[in-house]
């Protein structure tokens, strides 16, 4: 009996190379070709796309807003983008994958205008057309080359791979600045630049070779990870605009876990204080005003003119019973950059709990109305806009570690009028926090867990001149649906960077491992 000839792709012979070349070419062509919309059934509804880019406002220069239909069973998506001032581009495939150059050209052409997107989707061989939607192209510059952030998996007891990365916002290119594979078994965190300047930043390493690394004037200075005179580590930093000083909090952080609650974890401090580090004289400047015994001072931030230091403070509670009673107020104290000294009077801008401000001074501009209706809430992560107009903060029901609080929302304090309001335009039912401003204060980014409730993603929004924010859009990716689904890391402490950060990870890794540390002095002011 003759054996029938079989045709196996897994065992190609080299007897017929031409045949196989043709076959592979045919397969490639098949993969490259997607069907075009025919017999389209129109639906009077907006397409359900991921990420939700319907009606968002974007800056010129942003990477293409590629997207997919949320329905996994959609085989092909066909998208036509037309600019209100001219030009059009087209994408057809399993997801809308726009050509980067064509996209940028279209955005340039339509600066200050709108893009209209016509979407058709093919499912089970049938095409459906949806109502057109718009994307607004802002005339406001982004004023940033890209962003920096940490990526970290959810963890509690121990940490695995993590790193600090930079991402070019005009495309999808991401580069690691420092990964903890370079410094094994250590935690890297809180990369913080001075007003998006990549030449001046600070980061921490926790673990066997712990350190706080300060990069300034082209030099890396490594401080001891734990400073005995502080009683702990340098934790949440914020640069003085002059570049000489950096404010830090020092926190003794603990965590406890809920057995049956939407909230999984409470992160709290047994102790925390705020102090200032003078990078020129290597001196830790402690002031009893921001290191009160029964109070937890935290999350410092300088005003853009450098004359004020904002921080949050709360009366410490006993844990676990008082876990939901620790409400942080937003305060500020004057700062003299010539002497490095804080002033003597603390202003309470937002009152976490009315009983907490007894004995402290009046509100900003004397407007006590600012705190009305805001009692029993907690303020965290104050971030003044660099133009000095606003201060954005996160409000939670209690505590300060907002990423684990689904109720965490962004709020905006108008520093001219003293009015504060929830940024409902950008908030969701999940946690929003860890926000940062672009250097021209026209754009801001923030973390949100709205995507799946656990993993933090980055969103960007524009702040209008009227103080209204535009609908935020998720950080673009080449194939966002696939990318974010597969990503088991959260984005953490994102910030804009005006230029690419130039750092030598190999050298930094060696410096960290070397344990050579700069000595610091301490000065205490009563």
């Amino acid at each position: 009996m003759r054996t029938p000839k079989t045709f196996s792709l897994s065992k190609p012979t080299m007897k017929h190379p031409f045949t196989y070349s043709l076959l592979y070419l045919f397969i490639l062509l098949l993969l490259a070709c997607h069907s075009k919309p025919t017999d389209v059934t129109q639906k009077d509804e907006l397409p359900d796309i991921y990420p939700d880019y319907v009606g968002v406002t974007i800056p010129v220069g942003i990477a293409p807003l590629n997207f997919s239909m949320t329905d996994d069973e959609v085989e092909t998506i066909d998208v036509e983008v037309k600019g209100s001032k001219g030009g059009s581009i087209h994408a057809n495939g399993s997801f809308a994958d726009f050509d980067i150059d064509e996209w940028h050209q279209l955005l340039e052409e339509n600066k200050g205008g709108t893009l209209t997107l016509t979407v058709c989707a093919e499912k089970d061989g049938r095409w459906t057309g949806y109502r057109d939607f718009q994307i607004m192209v802002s005339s406001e510059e982004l004023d940033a080359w890209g962003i920096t952030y940490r990526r970290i998996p959810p963890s509690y007891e121990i940490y695995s791979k993590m790193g600090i990365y930079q991402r070019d916002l005009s495309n999808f290119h991401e580069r690691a600045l420092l990964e903890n594979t370079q410094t094994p078994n250590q935690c890297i965190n809180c990369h913080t630049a001075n007003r998006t300047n990549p030449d001046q930043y600070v980061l921490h390493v926790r673990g066997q070779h712990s350190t706080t690394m300060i990069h300034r004037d082209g030099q890396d200075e490594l401080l001891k990870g734990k400073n005995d005179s502080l009683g702990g580590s340098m934790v949440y930093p914020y640069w003085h605009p002059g570049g000489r000083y950096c404010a830090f909090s020092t926190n003794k952080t603990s965590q406890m876990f809920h057995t049956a609650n939407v909230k999984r974890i409470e992160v709290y401090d047994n102790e925390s204080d705020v102090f200032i580090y003078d990078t020129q004289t290597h001196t830790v400047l402690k002031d009893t005003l921001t290191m009160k015994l029964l109070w937890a001072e935290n999350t410092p931030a300088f005003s853009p003119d450098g004359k004020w230091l904002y921080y949050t403070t709360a009366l410490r509670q006993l844990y676990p019973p008082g876990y939901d009673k620790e409400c942080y107020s937003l305060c500020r104290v004057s700062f003299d950059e010539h002497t490095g000294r804080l002033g003597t009077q603390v202003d309470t801008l937002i009152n976490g709990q009315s009983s907490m401000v007894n004995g402290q001074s009046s509100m900003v501009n004397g407007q006590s109305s600012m705190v009305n209706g805001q009692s029993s809430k907690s303020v965290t992560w104050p971030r003044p806009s660099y133009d000095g107009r606003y201060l954005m903060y996160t409000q939670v029901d209690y505590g300060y570690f907002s990423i684990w609080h689904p109720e965490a929302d962004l709020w905006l304090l108008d520093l001219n009028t003293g009015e504060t309001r929830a940024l409902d335009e950008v908030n969701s039912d999940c946690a929003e926090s860890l926000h940062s401003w672009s250097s021209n204060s026209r754009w801001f980014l923030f973390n949100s867990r709205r995507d799946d409730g656990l993993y933090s993603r980055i969103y960007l929004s524009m702040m209008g001149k009227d103080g209204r924010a535009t609908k935020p859009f998720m950080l673009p990716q080449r194939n966002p649906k696939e990318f974010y689904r597969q990503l088991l890391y959260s984005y953490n402490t994102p910030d804009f960077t005006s230029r690419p950060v130039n750092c030598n990870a190999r050298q930094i890794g060696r410096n960290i491992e070397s344990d050579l540390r700069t000595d610091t002095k301490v000065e205490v002011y009563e």
Partner: protein
Amino acid sequence: MLAISVFCFWLFLYPFIPVVREMSILFLWNTDYLMERLAIPGGLAQYLGEGVAQFFVNPFNGAIIYAVLFVVAQLLSMKLLRQFFPTIKKQYQFVLSLIPPIVLWGLAMLPHVPLTPTVAVLLVMGAGCWMMGSTSKKTRLVAVCVSIPVMYWLTGPAAILLTLCCIRWIPLTATLLAACLIGSSYLVPYPLEQIARGIDYDWSGVKEMGTYEEMECDMLIRQKDWKGILQRFPSPVSPAVRSAVILASYQSGIINYQQLMSQIVVPVDRYENKPSVFCVGDMHFIVYFGSVSSAFIVSDLSTLLGWPNIAQRAAFDAMEYIPNHNKSARAMKQLTEVCIITGQYTLARKYLSILENTTFYREWVQKMRPLLDNPKLIEKYPFMKESQEKYANTEDVFFI
């Protein structure tokens, strides 16, 4: 004979070691997973090692695969010995050829040594056999010089064995390998010391896979072999195993629910100095982490006790304990179950879409998907339904 010995050894004496290797990987059939590994020296060996380790989901597979690997090692050794020392008697060649498989066998006993070095050595031995086939010494030297950088990138420092193919030229070939090592330290984010040791050759360090006791107990919990747990651990050492024995007593009907809770949850002061002690209300749950296996035990026990939040935390930490930063398919399955119990369906969908790219969890994914589209189908899964009800009616208290 070698194959039978290896098979019996792994199946009857140490079945839990291959199982531990399986729960320390999340082998995905996608390009990103492959490229991520090929981007580092030794990446192909790691990829193939993990591809093999995914079959260890079942101890029987583990025993078979180890038997095959060690027999292949012996055959390759035999072939190399014939090429290197053709004049030695066959009996001696046979005895010498047993050395590499025995060394690899010893390495396999160490839980912190993954399959990567074993696969790397086999690949290099295979390449060595191919090169030794060349009759011209010059051709062989050229082949070795070309192969060293390539094999170094694919298999890691095991490529050093190739230098033996041209013994007279060892200074040259060893220098070439050293240049590859140093050069690669500028390309990948690892310290030179770790690159020289093999990036994925040795996991020893701060993180641990667990003690043999924890590994075996974890395997038995996975198999729901409660009687086995009671028989194997009459006097447990690890707190996690101690908790498992208490639960096994309950599952076997030896103690009732009240006794279970009073034994598994003990007053604060008895364990106050232990790290990571759980506290339920003002009571402590007597387990703590410290390794991949103990974290998995905690996760499993917590799921069975109806505390999905603790199970979720422990599953995340189990993954974080994996020394080479791998993720774990088993942990992800556990996380998916927790998400279904607690109603985090979007998150569950995310994990399922990842597990869909695995070999052995894909079928389970197909079963779970309809449940997300129609949560009422949970009726078909009595344990999950019961856990969901328990979770909804449990008073929220803290554990530390």
